[in-house]
């Protein structure tokens, strides 16, 4: 069955590139331009995993993470954080908020694809 991946980022060009990458990997892709949209899409579409930018308008990636984990339905959904800060405190905060892993921007597309694969497999 085709897996669905939600990508949330406020940078349109990053969305374009990630959308292409994930489709090429054979996933169904949902796009969100801010934290609120991400939350809404998760609630309505139940994606299999989420790629989350940290610095987003309306709701930050951390807040989205927190909201996801607070909901019993999405306890096991893999979350991969995409952060442009890369400071240890940010990474630690993200993991504390319930993210499964993180990648620091700019990342290698191969590594990202690999991580997404692993997280989806481990969630089964």
């Amino acid at each position, binding site marked *: 069955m085709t897996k669905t991946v939600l990508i949330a980022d406020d940078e349109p060009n990053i969305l374009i590139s990630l959308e292409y990458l994930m489709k090429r990997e054979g996933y169904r892709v949902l796009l969100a331009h801010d934290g609120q949209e991400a939350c809404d899409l998760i609630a309505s579409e139940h994606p299999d995993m989420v790629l989350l930018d940290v610095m987003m308008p309306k709701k930050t990636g951390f807040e989205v993470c927190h909201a996801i984990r607070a909901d019993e339905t999405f306890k096991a959904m893999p979350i991969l954080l995409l952060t*442009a800060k890369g400071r240890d405190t940010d990474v630690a905060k993200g993991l504390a908020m319930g993210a499964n892993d993180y990648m620091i921007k700019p990342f290698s597309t191969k590594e990202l694809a690999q991580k997404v694969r692993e997280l989806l497999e481990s969630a089964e």
Partner: protein
Amino acid sequence: MVAPALVVGVTLAYLLILFAVAYFGDKRAEAGRSVIASPWVYALSMAVYCTAWTYFGSVGRAANAGVWFLPIYLGPMLAMILAWLVVRKMIRIAKTYRITSIADFVASRYGKSPLLAGLVTLITVVGIVPYMALQLKAIASGYAVLTLPLGQSMATPADWWADGVLYMALALAGFTIVFGTRHLDSSERHEGMVAAIAFESVVKLLAFLLVGAFVTYGMFGGMGDIFSQALAQDNLKHLLAFDQGQPFAYSQWFTLTLLAMLSVVFLPRQFQVMVVENVDERHLRRAVWVFPLYLLLINIFVLPIALGGLLYFGVDTVDPETFVLSLPLAQGYNWLALVAFVGGVSAATGMVVVEAIAVSTMVCNDLVMPLLLRTRRFGERSGGDLTGLLLGIRRTAIVLILLLGYVYFHLAGNTYALVSIGLISFAAVAQFAPAVLGGMYWKGGTRNGALAGLLAGFVLWTYTLMLPSLAKSGWVSANFLEYGPLGIAWLKPEAFLGLEGMDNLSHALFWSLFANISAYVWVSLWQRPAAREASQALLFVDVFQRTSVAHPVFWQGQAKVTDLLHLTGRFLGEAKTERLFADYAQQVGVYDIGQIPADAKLVHFVETQLTGAIGSASARVMVASVVEEEALELDDVMRILEEASELRVALEKLKSLDHLKDDFMSSVTHELRTPLTSIRALTEMMQDDPEMELEQRQQFLGIVVAETERLSRLVNQVLDMAKIEAGHAEWHNSDVDMREIVQQAVNSVAGTCRERGIALQTELPPQLAPLRADADRLVQVVLNLLSNAIKFVPEGSGKIDVRVRDSAAGVTVEVQDNGIGIAPDKHAQVFEKFRQVENAAGSQQGTGLGLPISRQIVEHFGGRMWLASQAGRGACFSFFLPR
């Protein structure tokens, strides 16, 4: 019964082990690999609080009064948990000013007063001697229990030289001397001793737990069994109740807890291990829970042992204070009794060693030195090396203190229970609390106030507690207890001013602390402090502010480096002094001792070093004798303080700038990573996928080009911003016509507006007097506002109005759009660096620096920029430039 030779042999062997630990600790410290640099060792060394009194006395007290042994341990637990911030401040003060005893702490705070130092020392000696006696008594009676048949007590030999306790006291003195006074140090730290104390704490705890477990689980069927058996006996069950059959004595419980809280900080040995020997303030965090836990552990079996003893022997047959030994003996477990005895000796030795070292430092620095320095030979400028003399004084003091303890033991020891002796000492050191705590938190406390308070407290302590205890020992007639001196009833020591209905300890503590605090506060309020008191008050109370940045030096006058060098050498030894001065030279940035500037800072440095060796009061006198001082007035203190705080403000400003710079760098990095992410992802995918459709490839390449442009724009703007902020930007000023500027900017965006169907209108005055400014920069500002507006107006129906208004004061430019607008609470944010309000999709990506730079430019020409907008109603950015 155990053979005396065995007991003596085992005890000596144990002391040798302790010594080996101390030796090892010292050697490691010399090699730079300190064993006491561990929070565990620090926390365990605090357990020197548990003396032979804990070991034997607690059980005795529990056997007489049940749970009433507890407050003595609850106090320290509470003190550590509630007041560790106080202790931390004490440590910081003591370290910063090289304070090595509680007497010096008080003296130093109140203007380095020799009189105060002497008084505190005197109170300590008088208060502590009974406590020393108690340790001797504990060892002596423990020895008797071990070596004599059960129930029989040792006859005191008629001749003092035949008394084994005397030799034990001397042996302990020797032990202390070797431990504590092998060399003279300006920080007065004894690493080996601390290691030995920590070791000793473990031994006494294990020994006590072993006996406790033996009694509880070996002789009885566990705690529950002991308690239920005790409850079944009429003469024992009251021990398990708080009220003991009478109304619960809150005041007494409170008094005991308070007393123990104060003594865990103010007892000389506690001050020594907790403050003086502390190597790292952070260790306190561990001690805050480890030490209370230790106290809890050592108290777990107190009540079971006491009740077990009473159940086993019956009430009033065997002295409960010896249960720890007599219970194993009665069961035939002689080895266990011996282990318990070693634990008791361990507790006593630890206490005696640390207390004697602490008190001898005080006696030497605060009692003997000030007197010696007044005499002809020592006060002179050209005296010889005094380090040997200092050590000699301390060693003599140690022997004398222990001998005094022996004398007290010999005369009074047999008539008084261990616990009561200890509480008298506790009440004596509690008198330091107002002066010390007041001194740490209240700048208004003065020397005379502290003197008055200590004297009043000490006199009342003597009268209401010490004298009655002596009377009860039969030394003085007890008549005055019954009827008051000369028959005056309201002067009765145990019902002073007619205050009755309290136990004598609560009564004494109430009156002595009441008089102490009142005298301290009233006298302090009554007089203005002298300059030196005021300066010391500042240094103590604000120690954290002072030590975090440069601290002020309250001294003025002339000095010579050679004089100061020579003076330091006399007290610390030549070699050590050379080293200290060489380090100092490096610190102030000169190559040679001879080049050190003889300024206030050097004088302060020398005085601090000497303080460690001879106490602050004596150090003050000695330094004053070799330099020419100008008297310090209160105004000088304020002036010096102001200079120092100006320096501090400057430093803090630098720090916050540094912080801002860090934030800026982190934001720039973030902004650079974002376009790089798209560029990397897209190019990688194109590289991996040579079959990619041409159209797709073209779209991606377009994005790459746009993101690259964004990157270079960002780099340019960051450089621009940095230049403007640092004041390095170049400004090409000329007479500019604002109409031309606006027209130029409007022309360059006109094409884009047409493409997107945006109506762009300009409203310019017919003529305008020129302004003096940089034309290119102003075009940049207007262009910025315009491209912002273009981003936010709706495509197809967008509308942008640019208006220029003239007035006598200057020119105002407005850029009004019909976009989504900005809520008023976000207005301040838009001018912050890297704050972007949401972008309309597909537009040129902003850098988050445009508005901040524009504002900087406008402000450079003395103008200002602002925003008027509400969410949903469009935005109007305006700026004003003065003529």
